[in-house]
């Protein structure tokens, strides 16, 4: 019995000896994240100043170009054109993907009908379909939205399906024994229980959606962010090109962070503290 107490004590003591005051800032996640960004910008700045390539601008030049593109309106205009199909595609993929995935997880026939299609789609290099989509739907909003969905949907469907299939059966029995209806079993047990894996799929799906829209704009529909990147590259305006690329990466990251926030806020509050 004494062993249990000393074991826990020994573990917590060991790392803190010798650097008890240093442990403080190392445990502050916000500070660490800011530090990570600063470190990244610093390395970028140095690499640009060496320079590693004549086409590689410094961080400061890139940031200045970023502000310039906001000021002259070219970046907001490009985002307006890119975000519409992106948001539409991601939202459609989310509802369709979670819906189809849940259905396949609950319903054997649906599983046999749909899951093989999505397994093939996930395995295929779907970016190759994008020119095909343009061929059929032209170069407008529909083609871009479809490009987003082709990349985002399979991973969302498959993750949702997997999560629903592996739901805790004991919780389902509990819900039934307390007179839960079929719909209550799905909405209050299966979906919340599956939500961590569903959200993992959503994160991958949203990231893939960003890939889809940029690919569509680079490959076929010269509009929006993709067009801005191509345009500045052709002018050898590398600072502006890098600023555009960095901005879409930043936006994608922020979207994923927001998604995680929604998950812990609305679906799994018990993970908030962790």
């Amino acid at each position: 019995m004494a062993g249990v107490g000393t074991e826990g004590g020994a573990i917590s003591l060991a790392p803190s000896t010798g650097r008890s005051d240093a442990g403080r800032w190392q445990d502050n996640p916000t500070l660490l994240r800011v530090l990570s960004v600063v470190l990244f910008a610093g390395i970028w700045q140095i690499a640009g100043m060496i320079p590693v390539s004549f086409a590689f601008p410094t961080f400061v030049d890139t940031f200045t170009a970023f502000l310039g593109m906001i000021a002259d309106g070219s970046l907001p205009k490009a985002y307006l054109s890119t975000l519409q199909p992106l948001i539409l595609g991601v939202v459609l993929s989310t509802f369709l993907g979670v819906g189809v995935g849940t259905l396949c997880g609950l319903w054997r026939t649906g599983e046999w009908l749909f899951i093989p299609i999505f397994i093939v789609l996930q395995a295929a290099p779907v970016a190759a379909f994008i020119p095909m989509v343009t061929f059929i739907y032209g170069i407008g909003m529909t083609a871009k939205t479809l490009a987003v969905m082709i990349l985002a949907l399979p991973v969302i469907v498959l993750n949702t399906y997997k999560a629903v299939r592996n739901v805790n059966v004991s919780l389902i029995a509990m819900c039934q024994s307390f007179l839960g209806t079929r719909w209550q079993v799905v909405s209050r047990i299966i979906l919340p229980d599956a939500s961590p894996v569903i959200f993992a799929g959503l994160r991958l799906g949203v990231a893939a959606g960003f890939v889809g829209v940029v690919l569509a704009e680079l490959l076929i529909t010269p509009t929006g962010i993709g067009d801005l990147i191509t345009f500045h590259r052709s002018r050898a305006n590398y600072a502006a090109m890098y600023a555009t690329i960095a901005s879409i990466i930043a936006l994608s990251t922020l979207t994923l962070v927001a998604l995680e926030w929604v998950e812990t806020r609305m679906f799994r509050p018990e993970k908030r503290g962790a």
Partner: protein
Amino acid sequence: MRNATLRKGPTLMPEPVDAIVEVRGVSKSYGNVEALRGIDLDFPRGKLTSLLGPSGCGKTTLLKIIAGLVNADAGTISVNGRTVSKPGPERAFVFQDFALLPWATVLRNVAFGLELRGKAAAEREKIARHYIGEVGLAGFEDKYPHELSGGMRQRVGLARALSVDADVLLLDEPFSAVDEQNRRKFQEDLIRLRTTQNKTFIFVTHSIEEAVYISDRIVLLSPRPGRISQIIEPEIDRSVDPDRIHRDKHYLDTVEEIWQGLKQYVD
């Protein structure tokens, strides 16, 4: 130090009294595993009946059939004189693995049965708070299951079952995932709750001591296929100090008698 309050009652099929749950000719097989064969059993109202037997003799299966969570191949279950085949409001289940919602607080977990029945939030939380206090968890309403010990989690499961105000509580080895100290405390609380709540308890266990300590009636099941081998009524006065019961000769004799009966089935 002789405790005169302990008496061992008659064994083997006592007179049927007011039975709240009646099991008639229930059989169940899983593939070619025969889990239960021809079970006839009455559960007296307001009493605590234990189903006791070695692992795999069909205790959980019988309890889930009574709960309406598993369908019997043959036979009927009636509760309050009405034949049932699905879960109903007059029965509530306490699960061996607690079956708590990890994403919900203690309060919501305890109120969950009422939530499913569409009771208004304020009302169901008032009821839930009452039973949280009743099982000794006051102050833990806003904690999540992962912040509780095993014993406390099962108290949540018990409070949830009490909240829906069922006549019959079905408990499947509720203490098997709880450490020995908490188990003792929990058994004492259960004895107390049984006198205050006026409910019928059907309790599955594979601990002979536990069964003798808490039960009014013990049903011994034999394995492969599960059948009733003996019914024992310990008739122990539990108003005395719990520690004295554990040392009492009649208590120990009953434990020994049941062990002699079950020994043949243990390999």
